[in-house]
């Protein structure tokens, strides 16, 4: 797993992430079109639905091998937005500086955490880029 992290990140997952998100957007838009007079509450809900779709697209692109993507996919199944950062915070909290890491077991968990964080940021920044591009396309 760590050799993969050092080897670099795959690019095809970005296309999968973009297309999954686009599909979700189309579905959300279809639902919105059915309820013809758009209330103010509907647009607020729409924003939240799109946020959920964003994290879902990230998790699907990352696959089930990541702890953070599993957390999102399970959280979505329970119909709640499981913000993975909160989960990370719980793990990060007991941790101090790198030189305080004593036992090898702690080192392994810390290494995995860093690895997961790198991967999460990779997908998160990709998602921001995807949404920005769509917003730009809709502007023209």
């Amino acid at each position, binding site marked *: 797993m760590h050799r993969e992290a050092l080897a670099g990140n795959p690019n095809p997952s970005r296309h999968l992430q973009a297309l999954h998100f686009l599909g979700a957007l189309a579905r959300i838009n279809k639902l919105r079109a059915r309820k013809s007079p758009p209330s103010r509450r509907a647009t607020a809900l729409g924003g939240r639905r799109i946020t959920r779709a964003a994290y879902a697209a990230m998790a699907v692109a990352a696959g089930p091998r990541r702890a953070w993507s599993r957390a999102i996919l399970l959280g979505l199944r329970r119909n709640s937005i499981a913000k993975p950062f909160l989960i990370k915070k719980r793990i990060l909290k007991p941790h101090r500086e790198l030189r305080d890491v004593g036992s090898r077991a702690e*080192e392994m968990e810390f290494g995995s955490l860093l690895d997961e964080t790198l991967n999460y940021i990779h997908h998160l920044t990709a998602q*921001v880029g995807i949404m920005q591009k769509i*917003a730009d*396309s809709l502007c023209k």
Partner: protein
Amino acid sequence: MSSRRLRSRQSSSTRITEDQIIELVSKLQALLPESRIRGNDRVSASKVLQDTCNYIKSLHREVDDLSERLSQMLATTEMSSAQAAIIRNLLTQ
């Protein structure tokens, strides 16, 4: 002493060395927006972690803002006409 026995049982592929951790931390540092100002100067690992937390939080806020914008745009624009342009835009990386 028992930890030494444990170490010998672990295969080299699963053992995380301190060097690997240092490399992962420097990879994180390279991703941070602060690194554009700091350059390659070595920063403490705890500072990198702190900056990483802040960076992730700001990215979450960005996702929320963009979701809000997209929600309003979809309410006013017809998406089907823009779909071809969107897909073309997304797949040219």
